[in-house]
């Protein structure tokens, strides 16, 4: 990386971008392994009819998907190591996107709130 | 300070004008479609909410504009004044003007939420059911409890709750009778509901209704009429509308059953009874207030010879052989079972045609049949008059077209359908 000696924004806590080296093969291989294992586990669950029918199926799959998502973003995209500004640029929109998606599903009746009537 | 007067003049004038207008708006007379003179519990609930909104809105308005004007006038720069106070903020004040609006909003939110749930609750089970179907650009009304199908004119018994089921045949429309209720959209693949109870005192009243969601070329021309009548009158009206067309002569030569089964065909299976004499109840045209009489001018490039009279029997024949039957139903005329256009079974009992755009009389009917697309831009009904230019097909109607005499005959037939 092109290391720039200048400190960041005056209003923010001093933090040196790219100070941390990016991780290397030692980390990456574990990340890849985990991603593979989770994916295999997900697909395996898909083939267990009783589990698919259970209430746990969707939450389990969603959380595993989210986990994979987070792993890639943190390690492969280095968000864990990079400048906070990148984290804000990504996480802010991501939150709005997820909230929008969830509200839309509510509005179209795929997730239902029932109020005793 | 001369500037005071410069600014105060218009402000006072505006306020005076405002007050005058507000007062005028509250009486329904000059403003037949006003939302400020509600005539159902639903419209009243909204009006109550509105009054609260208006009151709080005016308070905020007066407060904000008052301080603003004061500041503008008071702190005008005076000669040599270079250094006003240099405040950068004031936490107490800022908390104050966060908190006060929040409190005002609570006073809006609470009745709002109450009204939402009250007005969207389920309607009473014995309500009058009306199915409304929006079409480009007219309204179809069905009364499933009475077996009545009609178009563009709605009869409601005063004092009885009516529950509308709203659907559309094509694009989105919105159903609105400003004096009686808020509006609701008609959306494909959904059924929306709206219900209210027209006040008993409204018997023998007429209300205007409109389509409020932009729905294409003639959105402006998608109006309708609502008659609130005595319950007994309503029953008579419904009983009559349910029956076949009054011009109930047996068809000249019953067609061989080709397998086309329309509603009309079934109704006509046994030869229709001779025309009943009682023409039921229909809202008297003499009682029609001015605002319920259409004023739409006819297109200048369209005319129909005055004094041409038609023969209903001949008209019936022509009608039954023409393109009309592809789109319209006349119960009692087995040939006429189309469902694309309005049901014409009792068209003569209506006061207006074409989405309450024109009065229902011989002249307007004739012009309409001659060139509906000039009468109502974009209309799905083809131009039928011989020699007429069809502005959508972009051609002049020739051979198959109807001549003026034929049109007059059809009009005579239609006007006999009381």
């Amino acid at each position, binding site marked *: *990386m*092109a290391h*720039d*000696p*200048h*400190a*960041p*924004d005056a209003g923010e806590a001093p933090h*040196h*971008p790219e100070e941390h080296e*990016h991780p*290397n*093969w030692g980390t*990456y*291989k574990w*990340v*890849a392994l985990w*991603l*593979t294992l989770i*994916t295999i586990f*997900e*697909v395996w*669950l*898909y083939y267990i009819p009783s589990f*698919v029918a259970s209430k746990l*199926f*969707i939450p389990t*799959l*969603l959380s*595993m*998907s989210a986990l*994979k*998502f987070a792993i*890639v*973003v943190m*390690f*492969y*995209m280095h968000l864990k190591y990079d*400048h906070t*500004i*990148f984290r804000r*640029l*990504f996480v*802010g*929109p*991501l939150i*709005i*996107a*997820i909230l*929008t*998606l969830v509200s*839309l*599903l509510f509005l*179209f009746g*795929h997730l239902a709130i029932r109020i005793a009537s | 300070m001369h500037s005071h007067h410069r600014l105060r003049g218009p402000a006072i004038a505006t306020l005076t004008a405002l007050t005058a207008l507000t007062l005028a708006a509250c009486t329904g007379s000059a403003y037949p479609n006003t939302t400020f003179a509600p005539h159902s519990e639903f419209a009243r609930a909204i009006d109550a909410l509105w009054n609260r909104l208006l009151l709080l809105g005016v308070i905020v308005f007066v407060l904000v504009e008052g301080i603003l004007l004061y500041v503008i006038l008071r702190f005008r720069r005076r000669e040599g004044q270079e250094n006003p106070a240099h405040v950068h903020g004031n936490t107490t004040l800022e908390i104050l003007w966060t908190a006060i609006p929040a409190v005002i909003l609570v006073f809006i939110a609470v009745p709002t939420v109450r009204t939402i749930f009250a007005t969207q609750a389920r309607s009473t089970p014995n309500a009058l059911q009306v199915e409304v179907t929006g079409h480009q650009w007219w309204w179809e009304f069905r009364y499933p409890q009475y077996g009545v199908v009609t178009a563009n004119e709605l009869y409601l018994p005063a004092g009885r709750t009516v529950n509308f089921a709203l659907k559309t045949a094509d694009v989105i429309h919105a159903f609105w009778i400003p004096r009686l209720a808020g509006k609701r959209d008609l959306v494909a693949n959904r059924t929306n509901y709206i219900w209210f109870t027209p006040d008993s005192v409204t018997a023998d009243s007429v209300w205007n209704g409109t389509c409020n969601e932009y729905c294409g070329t003639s959105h402006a021309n998608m109006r309708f009429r609502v008659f609130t009548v005595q319950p007994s009158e309503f029953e008579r009206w419904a009983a009559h509308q349910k029956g076949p067309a009054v011009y109930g002569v047996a068809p000249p030569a019953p067609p061989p059953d080709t397998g086309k089964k329309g509603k009309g065909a079934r109704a006509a299976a046994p030869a229709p009874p001779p025309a009943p004499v009682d023409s039921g109840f229909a809202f008297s045209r003499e009682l029609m207030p001015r605002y319920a009489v259409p004023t739409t001018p006819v297109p200048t490039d369209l005319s129909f010879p005055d004094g041409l009279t038609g023969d209903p029997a001949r008209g019936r024949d022509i009608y039954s052989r023409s393109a009309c039957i592809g789109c319209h139903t006349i119960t009692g005329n087995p040939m006429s079972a189309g469902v694309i256009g309005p049901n014409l079974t009792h068209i003569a009992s209506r006061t207006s045609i074409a989405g309450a755009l024109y009065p229902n009389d011989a002249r307007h009917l004739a012009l309409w049949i001659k060139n509906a697309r000039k009468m109502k831009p974009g209309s799905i009904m083809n131009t039928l008059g011989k020699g007429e230019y069809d502005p959508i097909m972009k051609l002049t109607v020739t051979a198959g077209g109807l001549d003026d005499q034929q049109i007059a005959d059809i009009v005579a037939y239609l006007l006999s359908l009381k």
Partner: protein
Amino acid sequence: MSATAQPHAHHHYTTTGLEHRKIAIWAFIGSECMLFASLISTYLIYKGRSVVGPFPHESWLNPATGQTMKPILNIPVTSQSTFVLLMSSLAMVLALAAVENKGKPVREGAGWWERSLSSSKLWLFMTALLGTTFLGYQAYEFTSFVREGLTIRTNLFGSSFFTLTGFHGAHVTAGVLWLLTLLAIDFKRGLGPKDALLVDIAALYWHFVDVVWIAIFTLVYLIR
């Protein structure tokens, strides 16, 4: 973005000390979140609303033949393509690491694997290759769906499925082209630490496309 552009960009003073283009790519990725959220929402909203088959997870009646047909999604095949795309991300980080460490001596006595880790060309190529493989899987999937009677016009499922996965596929395609450009530059003049930004932004884009697929795989393929 190409290597010859702005050769001395990093001499510029910036407020945060970060590169413009890296900020821009993250802003772009944030924006893409909304893009894919809209696509995925639509897919989910229309799930189960199609009036005719084929359906993703339910068997359906073929009106032409009167036969009952199997659900159309092919989980085993898609699991493989998912794995391929995940591995491409691994290759991508290795490519970036190779570029960043270009010029650093490889440890004395390193094996072939360790030595291969310093080859940016190898890993750029691998990433592009895996990406292309993923696209191959997708082409296979699309054509077999069409054979089984599902096109983008068939029903709501077809429209929303092909548009969503098609948009993703288009992103992968753009990424592969981007990677190939980098590879070409690497061959032409070699990519070194000073070019790390170029590879970095391509990598961020690539991983994002991967991450979107992680969501799609679960939401579209696995969840019934």
